Protein backbone atom coordinates (compact mmCIF):
# COMPACT_ATOMS: atom_id res chain seq x y z
CA UNK A 1 0.00 0.00 0.00
CA UNK A 2 2.51 2.59 -1.12
CA UNK A 3 0.29 5.45 -2.15
CA UNK A 4 -3.14 5.88 -0.67
CA UNK A 5 -5.99 7.67 -2.30
CA UNK A 6 -6.80 10.72 -0.21
CA UNK A 7 -9.73 13.05 -0.02
CA UNK A 8 -9.35 16.79 -0.48
CA UNK A 9 -9.19 18.59 2.88
CA UNK A 10 -12.19 20.56 4.07
CA UNK A 11 -10.28 23.00 6.23
CA UNK A 12 -10.92 23.42 9.93
CA UNK A 13 -14.68 23.96 9.76
CA UNK A 14 -17.80 23.36 7.72
CA UNK A 15 -19.58 26.70 7.77
CA UNK A 16 -21.33 26.56 4.42
CA UNK A 17 -21.39 25.04 0.96
CA UNK A 18 -20.72 28.36 -0.75
CA UNK A 19 -16.98 28.12 -0.07
CA UNK A 20 -16.57 24.44 -1.02
CA UNK A 21 -15.19 23.25 -4.34
CA UNK A 22 -16.78 20.64 -6.52
CA UNK A 23 -14.11 18.14 -5.42
CA UNK A 24 -14.77 18.77 -1.76
CA UNK A 25 -18.52 18.32 -2.10
CA UNK A 26 -18.07 15.17 -4.17
CA UNK A 27 -15.66 13.76 -1.59
CA UNK A 28 -18.24 14.25 1.15
CA UNK A 29 -20.97 12.58 -0.90
CA UNK A 30 -18.74 9.65 -1.89
CA UNK A 31 -17.60 9.15 1.69
CA UNK A 32 -21.20 9.30 2.91
CA UNK A 33 -22.06 6.62 0.34
CA UNK A 34 -19.51 4.21 1.80
CA UNK A 35 -20.63 5.05 5.34
CA UNK A 36 -24.25 4.08 4.71
CA UNK A 37 -23.54 0.43 5.44
CA UNK A 38 -22.23 1.24 8.92
CA UNK A 39 -25.80 1.98 9.97
CA UNK A 40 -26.82 -1.48 8.72
CA UNK A 41 -24.26 -3.42 10.74
CA UNK A 42 -25.04 -5.47 13.80
CA UNK A 43 -22.73 -3.18 15.76
CA UNK A 44 -23.58 0.27 14.40
CA UNK A 45 -20.33 1.85 15.46
CA UNK A 46 -16.80 2.35 14.28
CA UNK A 47 -13.99 3.43 16.59
CA UNK A 48 -12.76 6.34 14.48
CA UNK A 49 -13.67 9.10 16.96
CA UNK A 50 -13.15 7.02 20.08
CA UNK A 51 -11.99 9.19 22.95
CA UNK A 52 -13.02 12.37 21.16
CA UNK A 53 -15.74 14.65 22.40
CA UNK A 54 -18.24 16.42 20.21
CA UNK A 55 -20.47 19.12 21.63
CA UNK A 56 -23.84 19.82 20.07
CA UNK A 57 -24.54 23.45 20.90
CA UNK A 58 -28.11 24.02 19.82
CA UNK A 59 -29.27 27.54 20.59
CA UNK A 60 -32.32 27.00 18.44
CA UNK A 61 -34.57 24.06 19.15
CA UNK A 62 -34.39 21.20 16.75
CA UNK A 63 -34.96 17.63 17.71
CA UNK A 64 -34.49 16.02 14.32
CA UNK A 65 -31.19 17.65 13.34
CA UNK A 66 -29.72 17.29 16.79
CA UNK A 67 -30.68 13.61 17.03
CA UNK A 68 -29.28 12.97 13.57
CA UNK A 69 -25.97 14.52 14.57
CA UNK A 70 -25.96 12.57 17.83
CA UNK A 71 -26.45 9.31 15.93
CA UNK A 72 -23.68 10.23 13.52
CA UNK A 73 -21.29 11.14 16.32
CA UNK A 74 -22.04 8.01 18.33
CA UNK A 75 -21.73 5.79 15.27
CA UNK A 76 -18.30 7.25 14.69
CA UNK A 77 -17.45 6.30 18.28
CA UNK A 78 -17.36 9.77 19.79
CA UNK A 79 -18.58 10.94 23.16
CA UNK A 80 -21.32 13.48 22.69
CA UNK A 81 -22.57 16.30 24.88
CA UNK A 82 -25.64 18.27 23.92
CA UNK A 83 -26.30 21.79 25.13
CA UNK A 84 -29.57 23.44 24.32
CA UNK A 85 -30.35 26.96 25.40
CA UNK A 86 -33.81 28.35 25.19
CA UNK A 87 -32.41 31.73 24.33
CA UNK A 88 -35.16 33.73 25.97
CA UNK A 89 -33.59 34.10 29.36
CA UNK A 90 -30.06 34.59 28.08
CA UNK A 91 -28.92 37.40 25.82
CA UNK A 92 -27.95 35.77 22.56
CA UNK A 93 -24.71 37.66 22.04
CA UNK A 94 -23.28 37.06 25.48
CA UNK A 95 -23.95 33.39 25.24
CA UNK A 96 -22.14 33.00 21.98
CA UNK A 97 -18.86 34.62 22.99
CA UNK A 98 -18.90 33.03 26.41
CA UNK A 99 -19.75 29.69 24.88
CA UNK A 100 -16.78 29.96 22.57
CA UNK A 101 -14.44 30.68 25.44
CA UNK A 102 -15.84 27.96 27.69
CA UNK A 103 -15.67 25.32 24.99
CA UNK A 104 -12.10 26.28 24.23
CA UNK A 105 -11.25 25.93 27.89
CA UNK A 106 -12.81 22.45 28.03
CA UNK A 107 -10.64 21.25 25.14
CA UNK A 108 -13.49 20.07 22.99
CA UNK A 109 -12.58 18.54 19.64
CA UNK A 110 -15.60 19.48 17.61
CA UNK A 111 -18.62 21.70 18.03
CA UNK A 112 -21.84 21.40 16.09
CA UNK A 113 -23.71 24.68 16.35
CA UNK A 114 -27.20 25.76 15.50
CA UNK A 115 -28.08 29.39 16.22
CA UNK A 116 -30.68 31.92 15.22
CA UNK A 117 -28.25 34.54 13.93
CA UNK A 118 -26.83 34.42 10.42
CA UNK A 119 -23.06 34.26 10.58
CA UNK A 120 -22.96 32.75 14.05
CA UNK A 121 -21.23 29.57 12.89
CA UNK A 122 -18.43 31.57 11.33
CA UNK A 123 -18.36 33.79 14.40
CA UNK A 124 -17.70 30.72 16.56
CA UNK A 125 -15.29 29.11 14.08
CA UNK A 126 -13.13 32.23 14.05
CA UNK A 127 -12.81 32.24 17.80
CA UNK A 128 -12.04 28.65 18.75
CA UNK A 129 -9.50 26.14 17.53
CA UNK A 130 -11.93 23.21 17.65
CA UNK A 131 -13.61 22.15 14.44
CA UNK A 132 -16.99 23.82 13.97
CA UNK A 133 -19.84 22.32 11.99
CA UNK A 134 -22.74 24.60 11.10
CA UNK A 135 -26.07 22.91 11.82
CA UNK A 136 -27.99 25.98 10.72
CA UNK A 137 -27.18 29.64 11.36
CA UNK A 138 -30.08 32.01 11.03
CA UNK A 139 -31.01 32.39 7.37
CA UNK A 140 -27.50 31.81 6.09
CA UNK A 141 -26.73 28.10 5.52
CA UNK A 142 -27.45 24.56 6.68
CA UNK A 143 -24.67 22.74 4.87
CA UNK A 144 -25.28 19.17 6.06
CA UNK A 145 -28.90 19.45 4.97
CA UNK A 146 -27.76 20.68 1.57
CA UNK A 147 -25.35 17.75 1.35
CA UNK A 148 -27.89 15.12 2.28
CA UNK A 149 -30.29 16.59 -0.26
CA UNK A 150 -27.56 16.30 -2.90
CA UNK A 151 -26.84 12.69 -1.93
CA UNK A 152 -30.50 11.78 -2.05
CA UNK A 153 -30.92 13.36 -5.47
CA UNK A 154 -27.81 11.54 -6.68
CA UNK A 155 -29.07 8.21 -5.32
CA UNK A 156 -32.26 8.47 -7.34
CA UNK A 157 -31.35 10.52 -10.40
CA UNK A 158 -27.65 9.87 -10.91
CA UNK A 159 -25.05 12.62 -11.44
CA UNK A 160 -26.19 16.09 -10.46
CA UNK A 161 -24.68 17.78 -13.50
CA UNK A 162 -27.39 19.10 -15.77
CA UNK A 163 -30.28 18.09 -13.53
CA UNK A 164 -33.11 20.59 -13.14
CA UNK A 165 -33.89 21.24 -9.51
CA UNK A 166 -36.54 23.67 -8.28
CA UNK A 167 -36.69 24.86 -4.69
CA UNK A 168 -40.23 25.72 -3.74
CA UNK A 169 -41.50 27.89 -0.94
CA UNK A 170 -40.09 30.45 1.45
CA UNK A 171 -36.64 30.83 -0.07
CA UNK A 172 -36.17 34.27 1.48
CA UNK A 173 -35.98 32.98 5.04
CA UNK A 174 -34.46 29.59 4.27
CA UNK A 175 -30.92 28.52 5.03
CA UNK A 176 -31.70 25.12 3.49
CA UNK A 177 -32.49 26.90 0.23
CA UNK A 178 -29.23 28.80 0.23
CA UNK A 179 -27.16 25.70 0.92
CA UNK A 180 -29.03 23.82 -1.79
CA UNK A 181 -28.49 26.61 -4.30
CA UNK A 182 -24.74 26.76 -3.64
CA UNK A 183 -24.27 22.97 -3.62
CA UNK A 184 -26.36 22.33 -6.71
CA UNK A 185 -24.75 25.12 -8.72
CA UNK A 186 -21.29 23.92 -7.73
CA UNK A 187 -22.09 20.43 -9.04
CA UNK A 188 -23.49 21.81 -12.28
CA UNK A 189 -27.23 21.53 -11.79
CA UNK A 190 -29.71 24.02 -13.19
CA UNK A 191 -31.44 25.65 -10.24
CA UNK A 192 -34.75 27.47 -10.04
CA UNK A 193 -36.99 28.73 -7.26
CA UNK A 194 -40.76 29.00 -7.09
CA UNK A 195 -43.03 30.90 -4.76
CA UNK A 196 -44.56 34.34 -4.30
CA UNK A 197 -42.14 37.20 -4.88
CA UNK A 198 -42.58 38.32 -1.27
CA UNK A 199 -40.81 35.12 -0.22
CA UNK A 200 -37.97 35.33 -2.76
CA UNK A 201 -34.62 36.87 -1.82
CA UNK A 202 -33.71 40.02 -3.73
CA UNK A 203 -31.24 39.53 -6.58
CA UNK A 204 -31.59 35.75 -6.52
CA UNK A 205 -31.07 35.91 -10.29
CA UNK A 206 -27.52 37.10 -9.54
CA UNK A 207 -26.93 33.67 -8.04
CA UNK A 208 -27.80 32.15 -11.40
CA UNK A 209 -31.25 31.02 -10.31
CA UNK A 210 -34.47 31.39 -12.32
CA UNK A 211 -37.71 32.34 -10.61
CA UNK A 212 -40.93 30.54 -11.61
CA UNK A 213 -43.96 32.55 -10.61
CA UNK A 214 -46.32 29.56 -10.85
CA UNK A 215 -45.87 26.09 -9.38
CA UNK A 216 -47.28 24.51 -12.53
CA UNK A 217 -44.45 26.00 -14.57
CA UNK A 218 -41.90 24.79 -12.04
CA UNK A 219 -43.22 21.23 -12.05
CA UNK A 220 -43.33 21.23 -15.85
CA UNK A 221 -39.64 22.12 -15.94
CA UNK A 222 -38.12 20.25 -13.01
CA UNK A 223 -36.57 16.83 -12.54
CA UNK A 224 -36.51 17.39 -8.79
CA UNK A 225 -38.57 19.53 -6.41
CA UNK A 226 -37.23 20.44 -3.00
CA UNK A 227 -40.24 21.70 -1.06
CA UNK A 228 -39.56 24.02 1.87
CA UNK A 229 -41.54 24.39 5.02
CA UNK A 230 -43.74 27.45 5.19
CA UNK A 231 -43.95 28.98 8.63
CA UNK A 232 -47.12 30.35 10.16
CA UNK A 233 -45.28 33.52 11.12
CA UNK A 234 -44.95 34.49 7.48
CA UNK A 235 -48.68 34.87 7.18
CA UNK A 236 -48.81 36.90 10.35
CA UNK A 237 -46.09 39.19 9.04
CA UNK A 238 -47.93 39.80 5.81
CA UNK A 239 -45.72 37.91 3.38
CA UNK A 240 -48.69 35.82 2.23
CA UNK A 241 -52.39 36.40 2.80
CA UNK A 242 -53.12 32.95 4.27
CA UNK A 243 -51.84 29.38 4.41
CA UNK A 244 -54.96 28.26 2.57
CA UNK A 245 -54.22 30.57 -0.34
CA UNK A 246 -50.63 29.39 -0.36
CA UNK A 247 -51.69 25.76 -0.68
CA UNK A 248 -54.23 26.54 -3.40
CA UNK A 249 -51.80 28.53 -5.52
CA UNK A 250 -48.37 27.10 -4.68
CA UNK A 251 -48.99 23.80 -2.94
CA UNK A 252 -47.34 20.65 -4.26
CA UNK A 253 -50.47 18.56 -4.71
CA UNK A 254 -50.95 15.13 -6.16
CA UNK A 255 -52.84 16.47 -9.15
CA UNK A 256 -50.03 18.85 -10.02
CA UNK A 257 -47.33 16.21 -9.59
CA UNK A 258 -49.18 13.68 -11.71
CA UNK A 259 -49.64 16.25 -14.45
CA UNK A 260 -45.88 16.55 -14.71
CA UNK A 261 -44.30 15.36 -17.97
CA UNK A 262 -41.70 13.31 -16.12
CA UNK A 263 -41.27 11.40 -12.88
CA UNK A 264 -40.50 14.29 -10.54
CA UNK A 265 -38.50 13.50 -7.42
CA UNK A 266 -39.90 15.17 -4.28
CA UNK A 267 -37.72 16.23 -1.36
CA UNK A 268 -38.61 18.10 1.84
CA UNK A 269 -36.22 19.01 4.66
CA UNK A 270 -38.93 18.57 7.30
CA UNK A 271 -40.82 19.01 9.41
CA UNK A 272 -43.68 19.15 6.95
CA UNK A 273 -46.78 21.30 7.16
CA UNK A 274 -49.07 18.76 5.55
CA UNK A 275 -51.72 20.46 3.51
CA UNK A 276 -49.79 23.70 3.25
CA UNK A 277 -46.70 23.49 1.10
CA UNK A 278 -47.14 19.78 0.39
CA UNK A 279 -50.10 17.44 0.49
CA UNK A 280 -49.97 14.19 2.41
CA UNK A 281 -50.55 12.03 -0.61
CA UNK A 282 -47.46 13.52 -2.22
CA UNK A 283 -45.34 13.35 0.93
CA UNK A 284 -46.26 9.71 1.39
CA UNK A 285 -46.49 8.92 -2.31
CA UNK A 286 -44.21 7.18 -4.82
CA UNK A 287 -42.31 10.29 -5.91
CA UNK A 288 -41.27 11.21 -2.40
CA UNK A 289 -37.83 10.38 -1.00
CA UNK A 290 -38.33 12.27 2.23
CA UNK A 291 -37.54 9.31 4.47
CA UNK A 292 -34.38 8.49 2.52
CA UNK A 293 -33.26 12.05 3.18
CA UNK A 294 -33.38 11.31 6.89
CA UNK A 295 -31.36 8.11 6.49
CA UNK A 296 -28.83 9.86 4.30
CA UNK A 297 -28.59 12.61 6.90
CA UNK A 298 -26.79 10.36 9.35
CA UNK A 299 -24.35 9.06 6.71
CA UNK A 300 -23.60 12.59 5.49
CA UNK A 301 -22.95 13.83 9.00
CA UNK A 302 -20.66 10.86 9.66
CA UNK A 303 -18.77 11.71 6.49
CA UNK A 304 -18.35 15.33 7.57
CA UNK A 305 -17.09 14.23 10.98
CA UNK A 306 -14.63 11.90 9.28
CA UNK A 307 -13.31 14.44 6.82
CA UNK A 308 -12.96 17.25 9.34
CA UNK A 309 -11.47 15.47 12.35
CA UNK A 310 -7.76 15.31 12.75
CA UNK A 311 -4.78 17.53 12.90
CA UNK A 312 -3.07 19.69 10.33
CA UNK A 313 -2.39 18.36 6.86
CA UNK A 314 0.69 16.16 6.47
CA UNK A 315 1.79 13.53 4.01
CA UNK A 316 -0.09 10.33 4.56
CA UNK A 317 2.03 7.20 4.77
CA UNK A 318 0.25 4.01 5.48
CA UNK A 319 2.00 1.20 7.27
CA UNK A 320 0.77 -2.27 6.50
Amino acid at each position, binding site marked *: *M*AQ*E*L*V*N*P*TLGKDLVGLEELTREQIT*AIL*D*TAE*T*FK*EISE*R*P*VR*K*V*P*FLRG*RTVVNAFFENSTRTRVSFEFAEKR*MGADTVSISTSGSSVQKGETLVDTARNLEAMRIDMVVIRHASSGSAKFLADRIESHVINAGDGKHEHPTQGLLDLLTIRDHRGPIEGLKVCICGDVLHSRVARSNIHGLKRLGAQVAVCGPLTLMPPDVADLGVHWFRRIEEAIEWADVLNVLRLQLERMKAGFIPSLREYNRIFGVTRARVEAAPRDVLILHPGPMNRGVEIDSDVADGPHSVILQQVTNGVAVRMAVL*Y*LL*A*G*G*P*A*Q*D*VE*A*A*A
Partner: protein
Amino acid sequence: MDAPAVEQAVSRIADEVVRLAAGATELVLLGIHRRGVQLAALLAAQIRERSGLALATGSLDITLYRDDLMVVGPRPVVGQTRLPAGGIDGRTVCIVDDVLYTGRTVRAALDELADFGRPRRTLLAVLVDRGGRELPIQADVVGERVEVPEGGRVEVRVPEIDGSLGVDLVEAGG
Protein backbone atom coordinates in the same frame (compact mmCIF):
# COMPACT_ATOMS: atom_id res chain seq x y z
CA MET B 1 8.01 -11.32 -8.64
CA ASP B 2 6.50 -11.28 -12.09
CA ALA B 3 2.94 -12.24 -13.00
CA PRO B 4 3.51 -15.97 -13.42
CA ALA B 5 5.37 -16.06 -10.09
CA VAL B 6 2.45 -14.34 -8.40
CA GLU B 7 -0.02 -16.76 -9.92
CA GLN B 8 2.04 -19.68 -8.73
CA ALA B 9 2.20 -18.21 -5.25
CA VAL B 10 -1.58 -17.73 -5.25
CA SER B 11 -2.04 -21.37 -6.22
CA ARG B 12 0.17 -22.49 -3.34
CA ILE B 13 -1.80 -20.25 -1.01
CA ALA B 14 -5.05 -21.69 -2.34
CA ASP B 15 -3.99 -25.25 -1.60
CA GLU B 16 -2.76 -24.39 1.87
CA VAL B 17 -5.94 -22.46 2.73
CA VAL B 18 -8.07 -25.38 1.59
CA ARG B 19 -5.97 -27.71 3.72
CA LEU B 20 -6.28 -25.49 6.79
CA ALA B 21 -9.98 -25.03 6.24
CA ALA B 22 -10.58 -28.77 6.11
CA GLY B 23 -13.79 -29.58 7.88
CA ALA B 24 -15.44 -26.29 7.09
CA THR B 25 -18.53 -26.51 4.95
CA GLU B 26 -18.01 -23.04 3.63
CA LEU B 27 -15.21 -20.52 3.42
CA VAL B 28 -15.51 -16.73 3.44
CA LEU B 29 -12.68 -14.79 1.82
CA LEU B 30 -12.45 -11.15 2.86
CA GLY B 31 -9.96 -8.99 1.02
CA ILE B 32 -8.56 -5.87 2.72
CA HIS B 33 -8.76 -2.65 0.67
CA ARG B 34 -7.42 -1.96 -1.68
CA ARG B 35 -5.30 -4.59 -3.34
CA GLY B 36 -6.25 -7.37 -0.93
CA VAL B 37 -9.68 -7.34 -2.58
CA GLN B 38 -8.27 -8.19 -6.00
CA LEU B 39 -6.00 -10.82 -4.50
CA ALA B 40 -8.95 -12.36 -2.71
CA ALA B 41 -10.72 -12.60 -6.08
CA LEU B 42 -7.69 -14.34 -7.62
CA LEU B 43 -7.49 -16.64 -4.63
CA ALA B 44 -11.19 -17.44 -4.85
CA ALA B 45 -10.83 -18.37 -8.51
CA GLN B 46 -7.92 -20.68 -7.72
CA ILE B 47 -9.71 -22.31 -4.80
CA ARG B 48 -12.78 -22.99 -6.89
CA GLU B 49 -10.63 -24.51 -9.64
CA ARG B 50 -8.52 -26.67 -7.41
CA SER B 51 -11.13 -27.85 -4.91
CA GLY B 52 -14.82 -28.10 -4.52
CA LEU B 53 -15.03 -25.88 -1.47
CA ALA B 54 -18.05 -23.54 -1.32
CA LEU B 55 -16.86 -19.99 -1.29
CA ALA B 56 -18.21 -16.53 -0.55
CA THR B 57 -16.22 -13.33 -0.93
CA GLY B 58 -16.39 -9.85 0.49
CA SER B 59 -14.27 -6.78 1.15
CA LEU B 60 -13.11 -4.97 4.28
CA ASP B 61 -12.02 -1.37 4.49
CA ILE B 62 -10.12 -0.85 7.71
CA THR B 63 -9.56 2.93 7.46
CA LEU B 64 -11.93 3.72 10.31
CA TYR B 65 -10.20 1.22 12.58
CA ARG B 66 -6.66 2.43 12.02
CA ASP B 67 -4.65 3.53 15.04
CA ASP B 68 -2.63 6.14 13.18
CA LEU B 69 -5.20 8.43 11.64
CA MET B 70 -5.86 11.08 14.25
CA VAL B 71 -2.59 12.91 13.82
CA VAL B 72 -2.66 13.20 10.07
CA GLY B 73 -4.80 14.69 7.38
CA PRO B 74 -6.01 14.80 4.62
CA ARG B 75 -8.31 11.88 5.18
CA PRO B 76 -7.83 8.72 3.12
CA VAL B 77 -10.63 7.69 0.82
CA VAL B 78 -12.72 5.04 2.54
CA GLY B 79 -13.49 1.98 0.43
CA GLN B 80 -16.58 -0.17 0.52
CA THR B 81 -16.93 -2.74 3.29
CA ARG B 82 -19.19 -5.48 2.04
CA LEU B 83 -19.73 -8.78 3.77
CA PRO B 84 -21.33 -11.70 1.99
CA ALA B 85 -24.94 -12.57 2.66
CA GLY B 86 -25.34 -14.52 5.86
CA GLY B 87 -22.62 -12.64 7.65
CA ILE B 88 -19.69 -14.30 9.36
CA ASP B 89 -21.21 -15.88 12.47
CA GLY B 90 -20.08 -19.45 12.86
CA ARG B 91 -18.26 -19.51 9.54
CA THR B 92 -14.61 -19.91 8.63
CA VAL B 93 -13.22 -16.57 7.52
CA CYS B 94 -9.95 -16.05 5.69
CA ILE B 95 -8.63 -12.49 5.63
CA VAL B 96 -6.58 -11.78 2.51
CA ASP B 97 -4.04 -8.97 2.19
CA ASP B 98 -1.19 -8.14 -0.15
CA VAL B 99 1.67 -7.32 2.23
CA LEU B 100 2.08 -8.18 5.91
CA TYR B 101 4.48 -5.77 7.59
CA THR B 102 3.83 -4.19 11.02
CA GLY B 103 0.63 -6.12 11.57
CA ARG B 104 -1.42 -3.04 12.35
CA THR B 105 -3.68 -3.41 9.32
CA VAL B 106 -4.57 -6.95 10.37
CA ARG B 107 -5.17 -5.84 13.94
CA ALA B 108 -7.62 -3.24 12.59
CA ALA B 109 -9.28 -5.87 10.40
CA LEU B 110 -9.75 -8.22 13.36
CA ASP B 111 -11.32 -5.40 15.42
CA GLU B 112 -13.65 -4.59 12.57
CA LEU B 113 -14.62 -8.21 12.10
CA ALA B 114 -15.46 -8.43 15.79
CA ASP B 115 -18.12 -5.76 15.24
CA PHE B 116 -19.72 -7.91 12.59
CA GLY B 117 -19.96 -11.17 14.41
CA ARG B 118 -18.11 -14.17 15.69
CA PRO B 119 -16.57 -16.49 13.09
CA ARG B 120 -15.90 -20.06 14.07
CA ARG B 121 -12.38 -19.57 12.90
CA THR B 122 -10.34 -16.77 11.34
CA LEU B 123 -7.34 -17.35 9.07
CA LEU B 124 -4.89 -14.87 7.56
CA ALA B 125 -3.41 -15.34 4.09
CA VAL B 126 -0.94 -12.84 2.63
CA LEU B 127 0.93 -12.71 -0.66
CA VAL B 128 4.11 -11.22 0.84
CA ASP B 129 5.45 -11.25 4.40
CA ARG B 130 8.23 -8.69 4.76
CA GLY B 131 8.77 -9.08 8.49
CA GLY B 132 9.10 -6.02 10.74
CA ARG B 133 6.17 -6.83 12.98
CA GLU B 134 5.15 -4.32 15.65
CA LEU B 135 2.37 -6.50 17.01
CA PRO B 136 2.19 -10.23 17.80
CA ILE B 137 0.44 -11.15 14.57
CA GLN B 138 1.42 -13.91 12.11
CA ALA B 139 -0.06 -15.10 8.86
CA ASP B 140 -1.37 -18.65 8.56
CA VAL B 141 -0.44 -18.77 4.90
CA VAL B 142 2.33 -16.82 3.23
CA GLY B 143 3.00 -16.66 -0.51
CA GLU B 144 6.55 -15.38 -0.32
CA ARG B 145 8.83 -14.12 2.43
CA VAL B 146 10.89 -11.12 1.43
CA GLU B 147 13.82 -9.34 3.06
CA VAL B 148 13.51 -5.60 2.60
CA PRO B 149 16.59 -3.32 3.01
CA GLU B 150 16.42 -0.28 5.27
CA GLY B 151 13.94 2.30 3.94
CA GLY B 152 12.75 0.07 1.10
CA ARG B 153 9.18 -0.82 0.23
CA VAL B 154 7.31 -3.79 -1.13
CA GLU B 155 4.68 -2.85 -3.69
CA VAL B 156 2.14 -5.28 -5.05
CA ARG B 157 0.58 -4.59 -8.45
CA VAL B 158 -2.84 -5.88 -9.44
CA PRO B 159 -4.36 -5.51 -12.94
CA GLU B 160 -7.51 -3.69 -11.88
CA ILE B 161 -5.58 -0.88 -10.21
CA ASP B 162 -2.06 -0.92 -11.63
CA GLY B 163 -2.59 -2.57 -15.01
CA SER B 164 -0.41 -5.57 -14.36
CA LEU B 165 0.22 -8.30 -11.82
CA GLY B 166 3.47 -8.46 -9.89
CA VAL B 167 5.48 -7.57 -6.81
CA ASP B 168 8.23 -4.94 -6.79
CA LEU B 169 10.93 -4.27 -4.27
CA VAL B 170 11.51 -0.53 -4.22
CA GLU B 171 14.79 0.81 -2.86
CA ALA B 172 14.95 3.60 -0.33
CA GLY B 173 14.50 6.95 -2.03
CA GLY B 174 12.95 5.18 -5.03
